[in-house]
């Protein structure tokens, strides 16, 4: 239900971030306590661990209106749960190729490691992803498939 004023507004990407509770979520908290200004386009969904992230979450996010997705967790060897991030890394190495095959441009997906002490890196990840997705424009293919063209 876009109002005329909204449709005239410049395109603002919508980005969903799936992050782990221990490293990236806390790193994003640190960015907040450090008052690091960043693009307001990212919505965080908190999970215990990147190992919990099902690739279907990402596809679902695209279907429900996301133009880009960030997945971020603890650095290798730094996982709160010892190895969840390794499982995530393998899963997304495979998923990345599948996503391209499914018509999702590589730049719409951002995988990164952000530790609890890297508030600045989180800001860079957020700003970087927002800029890349902004250049690509809205992702509408799946929304059309779901019958909700925007």
């Amino acid at each position: 239900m876009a109002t005329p004023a909204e449709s005239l507004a410049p395109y603002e990407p919508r980005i969903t971030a799936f992050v782990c509770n221990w490293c990236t979520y806390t790193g994003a908290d640190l960015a907040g306590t450090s008052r690091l200004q960043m693009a307001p386009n990212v919505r965080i969904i908190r999970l215990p661990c990147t190992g919990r992230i099902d690739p279907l979450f990402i596809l679902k996010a695209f279907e429900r209106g996301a133009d880009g997705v960030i997945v971020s967790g603890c650095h290798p060897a730094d996982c709160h749960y010892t190895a969840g991030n390794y499982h995530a890394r393998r899963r997304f190495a495979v998923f990345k190729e599948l996503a391209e095959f499914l018509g999702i441009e590589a730049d719409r997906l951002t995988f990164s490691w952000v530790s609890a002490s890297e508030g600045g890196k989180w800001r860079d990840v957020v700003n970087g992803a927002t800029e890349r997705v902004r250049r690509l424009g809205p992702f509408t293919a799946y929304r059309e498939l779901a019958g909700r063209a925007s």
Partner: protein
Amino acid sequence: MARIGVFICHCGENIGRTVNCAEVAETLGTLPGVVHAQDYKYMCSDPGQALIRQAINEKQLDGVMVAACSPHMHEKTFRRACASEGLNPFLCEMANIREHCSWIHEHRERATEKAIDLARFIVEKIKRNQPLETIRIPVTRRALVIGGGIAGIQAALDIADGGAEVVLVEKEPSIGGHMSQLSETFPTLDCSQCILTPRMVEVYQHPNIKLMSYSEVEEVSGYIGNFSVKIRRKARSINEDLCNGCGACPKVCIVKKIPSEFDAGLGKRTAIYVPFPQAVPNTPVIDRVNCAHFKAKAKGIKKEACGKCKEECSRGAIDFEQVDSFVTEKVGAIVVATGFQLYTIDKDQPEGLAGYGEYGYGTIPDVIDGLQFERLASASGPTGGKMLRPSDGKEPKRIVFLQCVGSRDRAKGIEYCSKICCMYVAKHTMLYRHKVHDGQATVFYMDIRAGGKGYEEFVRRAIEEDGARYVRGRVSRIYREGEVLKLQAFDTLSGEPMLVEADMVVLATAMRAQPGIEQLAQKLSASYDGHGFLNEAHPKLRPVETNTAGVYLAGACQSPRDIPDSVAMASATAAKVLGLFSKEMLEREPTVARVDPALCTGCFHCERVCAYGAVEHKEIRDRKGNLIKVVAEVNAGVCQGCGTCQATCPSKSVELQGFTDEQIFAEINALAV
């Protein structure tokens, strides 16, 4: 239909300044299932919590969403408030509109829009939340302390005095750590051994402490309150039960010229040795790399090359055939006190560190490090406490100390401050002057960091009473000319280049993390920083805990620390451990995985990805006892709740409570307005 209450916090001005809280409350109030919406200045305050309690009562809420700060900050607060009104605490969740929104954005409209989104996701999630029960697990009232330096000793004694049993594991043949090598300590000039060795003996004799020297932690499994630790007892080649520490064996050892680790390479030891006279336990160890017997064996020589110590031992305690053995200890808490190593000035440097070619890479014998100076100054050291330089045994009349070698130099690879060097260099100048009355000590420093009780006064004393000359500047090169060392330097206060002559130079090298600490950290699931120092759970408010529940940090394994800090930290860990042990049962969040046996096909992919071994096999049988199938079952006590199993499960039969697929998809679905 759900009956959810939403509460939007202004956090004073912190959120309200950027986010239009009233608008957020108004918008969320229109969502289906939301029966109560309000904003308030401080939700976490007493009146704020009272609002939640009141709404639960009056409107019969079955879910509460608080949009405020990070859940890491106040989730517990609000869940408690809900529980006090009889609402299951796990039906309460938070949306983070402060750290993740108001503090990082300036545009009011867009921040408000984002806050509404974040809160809406959580409301949708809460609609699918299930009441959960806190898990209660028993506590093993025994602690493991890793490392027998001053921090480990203090932690072990405090815990043991508190009435709990302690297993103290030390990798070296004796406890004592670096402190046992020091001559005197700042800022009081106490003799280090005099204050340390009584504590070492206390550890040895304490009925609650089980000391395992020359041992290392091999494997750690389990979780807070219930760890199981496999310890490798390295082959000492001595039967500890038979040895009475008479000291006869080192006297007959034929290998005598091994650089002594305890004397920082300045003294010599034998192949069978006790590291130092006050060692605890006072049991020798055979250094198999250097021992003639073992060297011959390694070369394949059948004839026994040497057995002098064995012949000499009247108690038959020497056992050349001994092998590493393993013991498993059950403990409820683990204190890591593994200490530090010193930055080496040798040419061989670990990756990322540059080394000091300009100081001769440690090839000039009279350029030594701080620990070597300690041994020279120590009455138990290789010179018997006489200040004699290593090259020719002459008394150095001019001595130069360089601070920040390795530390605070990005170009060399370490940017942090090692914290203790300013103080021990001041101490060294004093010890030097007390031994060489006509000698001149010069110190090159970048800044003098003497924060601490009596510390600044101590440095002033070194300068004013003991005549140390402090020069602000760096030394760019050290070279030898005959017997004299020449230092090219730059005085940054006068802006003048200098050429200084010296008889001996002491480098105050950086403190680095212990080698192998990464492997230990991985066994403990503890995290560490880029330099290998272990990470505390919170830099200010949880300084001795790690992010792994039940694992605590004491001393220099966490960051460079001096003795008073290490001891304070060790006592703090003991307080934490004893606090943990004061409970009969531990409470844990019920964020654990559960398997639906009806759906499970028994592929056990979950078992393969579980880092904790929490997945067990369960047989499903019919009434006659015939096996129908084997399914996975999660041991809730062992499961830590990462959810990797759920993302892996092809039949979607395992669910992580609190983060089920239904809940997450509800959040994602809420993306579309």
